[in-house]
């Protein structure tokens, strides 16, 4: 199969993820959407890797998965902490960084 379809799928996934990050307010969903974006990136990497014919892309994809796992740990930890301190689970209300 031609590489274009993989890339289209990857772009679609990425757009869905990005759209989710931009429009949703629940931190949990934002986190899910971030995962989608990461996986879209991984898909693109592997596609290119298969199409060019060397294995470097696979290695990168593995690294991205590791980073994603770490990110999920931190992100979920934050969300649990927010929940336990009874903070509103709404990222628009967490605005302490306002300048």
């Amino acid at each position, binding site marked *: 199969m031609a590489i274009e379809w993989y890339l289209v799928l990857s772009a679609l996934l990425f757009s869905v993820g990005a759209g989710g*990050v931009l429009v949703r307010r629940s931190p949990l969903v934002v986190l899910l959407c971030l995962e989608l974006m990461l996986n879209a990136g991984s898909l693109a990497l592997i596609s290119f890797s298969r199409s060019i014919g060397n294995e470097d892309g696979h290695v990168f994809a593995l690294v991205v998965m590791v980073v994603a796992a770490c990110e999920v740990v931190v992100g979920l930890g934050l969300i649990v902490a927010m929940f336990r301190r009874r903070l509103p689970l709404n990222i628009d209300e*967490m*605005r*302490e960084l306002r*300048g």
Partner: protein
Amino acid sequence: MSATTFGWLVVGFPLLGSIVIALGHRAWPGKVAGLIGTAAIGAAFLSSLGAFAALLDQPIEERQLTSALWDYGSAVGLDINLGILVDPLAVVMCLVVTGVSTLIHLYSVAYMGSDRGYARFFSYLNFFVFSMLLLILAGNFVLLIVGWAFVGFASYALISFWYRRETATKAGMKAFVINVVGDIGLVLAAFLIFRELGTFDYLTVFEEARSQFDTNDGTVVAICLLLLVGAFAKSAQIPFHTWLPDAMEGPTPVSALIHAATMVTAGVYLIARAHPLFELAPTAADIAAFVGLATLIVAATIALVVTDLKRIIAYSTMSQIGYMIVGVSIGAYTAGIFHLMTHAFFKALLFMAAGSVIAAMAGRQNIDGMSGFRRAMPFTSLVLIVGALALAGFPGMSGFFSKDEILVFAAERGGMYWIFAIGGYAAAFLTAFYAFRIGFRVVTGEPCDEARELERGHLVHGEHSNPATGEKEDTEVGFPGPEHHIAERAFPMRVAMGALAVLSIIGGVIQIPGVSAGMEHFLEGTFEESELFHIVPSEGSAYLGLLAGGAMAIAGIALAYLLYVRRPGATLGLRDRARGVHDFLFNRWFFDELIDAVIYRPAIRTGRFANEVVERVVVDGIVNATTGAVREVGVLVRGAQSGFVRAYALLLLGGFAALALYFLVVSS
């Protein structure tokens, strides 16, 4: 054992004593700390004698022995080691320092008996002796500087020994600061020596200097002048002399040991040690001699009017060191070192006697209140008179031979050097007068109240107060102890004073023109290559000098007798008639004020300028401008920081999208 082994022992014993006393300073009962200290210095004295004997076994040309324990630094062109040089000059100095120190330690065992800082005192005192011996035995300029700085610290610690007395702590700081100025001179001299000659080792430096420098070469003159800065600061010569009178705030044994007999003669030793350099730089040597002459005259005139007993003796010390500086600078090495030795004897003796008198006066030091102690304290009075006679240079006493030898040598060199002989003899007259100003006022006359009390058998115990300001004090640690000790009752003090009195009388026999020349023969091992060393005044001129010196001494004593014994109170009339002169002398030639005006106040003013203009306007201006600019920019861009995570995400994505579009457009 070889001489160098003894040399190491000489340095080692006092260090060991200091450490042992310090480690157990809470545990030592009674007088144990004092006895340990005295024993350590006594052992060092015996080791010095051993070194002396070992050197005598060597032929004269081989009496400069070096020994090094280890290297500090040994790299390309650099050789610094923990090495000593044992030669006749060092051994003579060691004998004087350890001998006098032993006696002063013995005296302190009783004198400091009731002080709450007893062990601390002896630890400091032993540390001082260690530093002084390190300074003397050092085999290179680096170790010399180490000893030099240690000695400065020990002096500071002991001047400020009564640390709750504000006058004492201030005097300590003054001494330390002025001494550090001297240290800087010494360090710079060492740098210069290393740059020019590539070594710090004494013997190599002197040998190299002889081949490398012409006479009065600019570099060698600069080196000598820098060395002189160090020597003058340590030996209290003009203009670095103002710390010495203030140093009298320390306990009396400290004044006797450090500020009379040993430390302040380090400058004399330094000039004698570096004599090959000074002979290559006659200009610097002449400058040193003139400074010495000025100091000896200025100090002698101040000693005529000061009323604090210890300060009179302090000015006398400055004056006598002036003689030594003149001596070693004009090439009278034997005479200079000889005078250093006899001066150590009689000046330590005078301070000890003064300490005994001050104790009898319950801590007061003003001689205006003292009189008639001859029946109350016959022993102290006797040794005080012996010390004064030796200081005055009364015929037959030790000071008589040593002082005149310097002056006769000056006359022998002739020409310009006559000035030193004339000035020296004039000051000898003043010396005799002020020596007996002390002697007669303390010993003769109607007994004062304290003397009467003592005759009846009890020591006056006045209220404890600072002798300088009259402030009330208690007797806890940091102030003098409650009991006073006088030589009449304390056995160790009597022994120490008796021994020094005998030495003050007979100390001159080792070097009498035409009779004996022990000092000269022994010192030849150090100075044999010096041309000036071999100038020996003829016997006739030497005896003519002794005659003149004796006449000066007797005339001075006679004048003092006339003014203080025959017509007591005559000096008051004299003071009123010559108010201006008296005030000028009493204010110490306004040297303190001069230094205040020339150095202290401009420094303060510069500091204030730096604070008000450089710091507040320039530096703060730059800093404030930077922070202000950052703050202004921050205000401008603050709006972008909305705090909405989604807004940030949008910016991020938008930015990347824009970048990607841009590259697409550019590449296609």
